[in-house]
């Protein structure tokens, strides 16, 4: 599958923001002010894959609808900001960087899942 503006995950694996730590950064092609958007929104297969990733990795903190971490099913983050937060973590909180564990596509799938419902249910 492809991510962002038709870019492969590999070509995204460069710098998004200059200020980001070097763990995982990626590059946008095209106009620098174009925001990345989730290419999987509304796609059932991607949502199902995202649910599986969510319960394997995210659930322990974000739980069914928020817990130690915020309620991702009510996130107000932009698609791009969501992606960047998962990949790089959030400094000053216990949100770790998952950039070495999850591919951008997997994060987009999680995002598609949390945008598809208002809570996690088995």
């Amino acid at each position, binding site marked *: 599958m492809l991510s962002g503006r038709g870019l492969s995950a590999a070509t995204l694996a460069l710098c998004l923001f200059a200020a980001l730590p070097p763990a995982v950064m990626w590059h946008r092609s095209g106009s620098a002010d174009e925001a990345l958007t989730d290419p999987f929104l509304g796609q059932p297969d991607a949502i199902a894959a995202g649910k599986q990733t969510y319960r*394997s990795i995210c659930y322990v903190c974000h739980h069914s609808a928020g817990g130690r971490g915020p309620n991702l099913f009510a996130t107000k983050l932009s698609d791009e900001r969501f992606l960047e937060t998962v990949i790089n973590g959030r400094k000053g909180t*216990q949100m*770790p*960087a*998952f950039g070495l*564990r999850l591919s951008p596509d997997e994060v987009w799938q999680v995002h598609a899942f949390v945008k598809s419902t208002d809570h996690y249910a088995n």
Partner: protein
Amino acid sequence: MKTTMMRFAIAASAALAAVLSASPGSAGPVTTDDLVKAQDNAGEWVMYGRDYRNWRYSPLAEITPDNAAKLTPAWAMSTGGQFGGLEATPLFHAGVLYFTADYGRVFAVDAKSGNIIWHYEPEYEDGFNAMLCCGPIHRGLALKGDLVYSMRLDAKLEAFNAADGKIAWEAKIDEWKNGVTTNSAPLVVGDHVIVGVSGGEYGVRGYLKSFNAKTGALEWQTYTIPAPGETGSETWPKDDSWKTGGGPTWLTGSYDAETNTLYWGVGNPGSWQFEQHLGDNLWTDSTLALDPDTGKIKWGYQYTPNDSWDYDAMATPILIDTTIDGKATKTWAVSSRNGYFYVLDRTDGKFLYAIPMVENINWTSGLDPKTGKPTINEAMKPKQGAGQVQPIVPGLEGGTNWFPPAYDPDLGLFFVGVNQWGMGLTSWEKGKLQYKPGDLYMGVDYQMYRMGETIGHIRAIDVANKKVAWDVPSPLPVFSGMLVTKGGVLFTGDQRGRFLALDAKTGKELWKFQTGSGINASPISYELDGKQYVAILSGLGGDPSFYYSAPKGGMLWVFAIDGKVDEGGAYNAEVIEKMLPAFKQ
């Protein structure tokens, strides 16, 4: 990695040398004899549980129920960092407090002045933090010789020079990318530094390892999950489930020097889906007795077979000599997450008795009075794809958990924090859970529930008479360890941030102090210049932060009656030279 000697802002270099040469920490190495006789060393606290029996009983008696109300802070210091939660037991030796903070940071602090002598800030590889399911907490250190032993969270054991924090040696325990992390205090027995590991929720195969205290060389490794053909392997299916079978060893054990026997608790099986490992699953949810020189298992006792509720039995066994049914008995006592308080004969692992610590336990319909083996309530086992089972009591956080109990030999009372709560569990559909190194390996969704207005209880159990002696409720869960003193005072903390002194005999509240953040660590008491001090770390984090939104913090508080602090002209502050150089004409 960074080890920092505090440079004193005021002292000139010559004066600094004088300060260091006279500084605490130079009063002699900790010997094997010091450890074996730790209980007799009234003024110090040289190992995690104060002594090998893990009593957390201080022989100091200046603070009593009559004067505890006069306790005041002597000094405090911030541990800084990211406020990831504090769960450690400090150590006190030769005038220095040694303790760990979140992310495995190590501090050596002059107890007289409150000034940092050295500290260590581990740096972790990219991606490591994603391996910390339950927060970046850390529980403590060990001392032997001139060295301080601490495990980094990423499964490395380090030995620091006690005097200056320089790393004497480092040993790799395991590969963190496979889900093994380490956050407990090592136990030093003779020249063995014995360590346990976390990672039960990541499908690790649990074990203990022993490293040579002087060199860091690996001496032995003993798995808690038997390989095919080994004793206990008959309690596992004839497949590969044992390879990811859990049984982590994530709290510090106990040691009986008379019989040269190590006692260590073992956690729950992986995954939480019991169908993946049908059988009793030795030695998960068990206490093991081992030879500390070889790691050979002498015997074990399992509390919860084929666990699917996260009822780790990792609790530190407390070694108590008492009278049971009219007979002098050498026991180990364990407060298990499964809700029961167990007493066993530590000479052979034979069950003596168990009593419930919480009400309405329903994962079992009862324990066999002779063997302690539970009759499982099958209705409370979450089955693959069969929907939620609820409410299961106790909840996965347990009737109690890792926070250490204390034992008062004068009163015969065992003090423990217990929590009355429940949970719902939903097991994933069959085939949905696949083991992947470094990913959570649970296969069950969970929901904790409050089961009433009051969750927490500080409880005293009369060990010889098999009954609860007193109970003090606390509206929020109790996650603080216990300290009891010969003066008759029980110290502990609560989620509201209050550090408490109770009358050990009755539970009556004597004194409290608001520390500013939830207390999930364990207090100690020590003597300095003839005065009794009590120290506690305060900082919400770890599992309690799953359930409570409250101010985070990171403080070491030290209390005494008319306590003194002698800053000695040095402070925990130094000029950043590049930002504020001395002006030169």
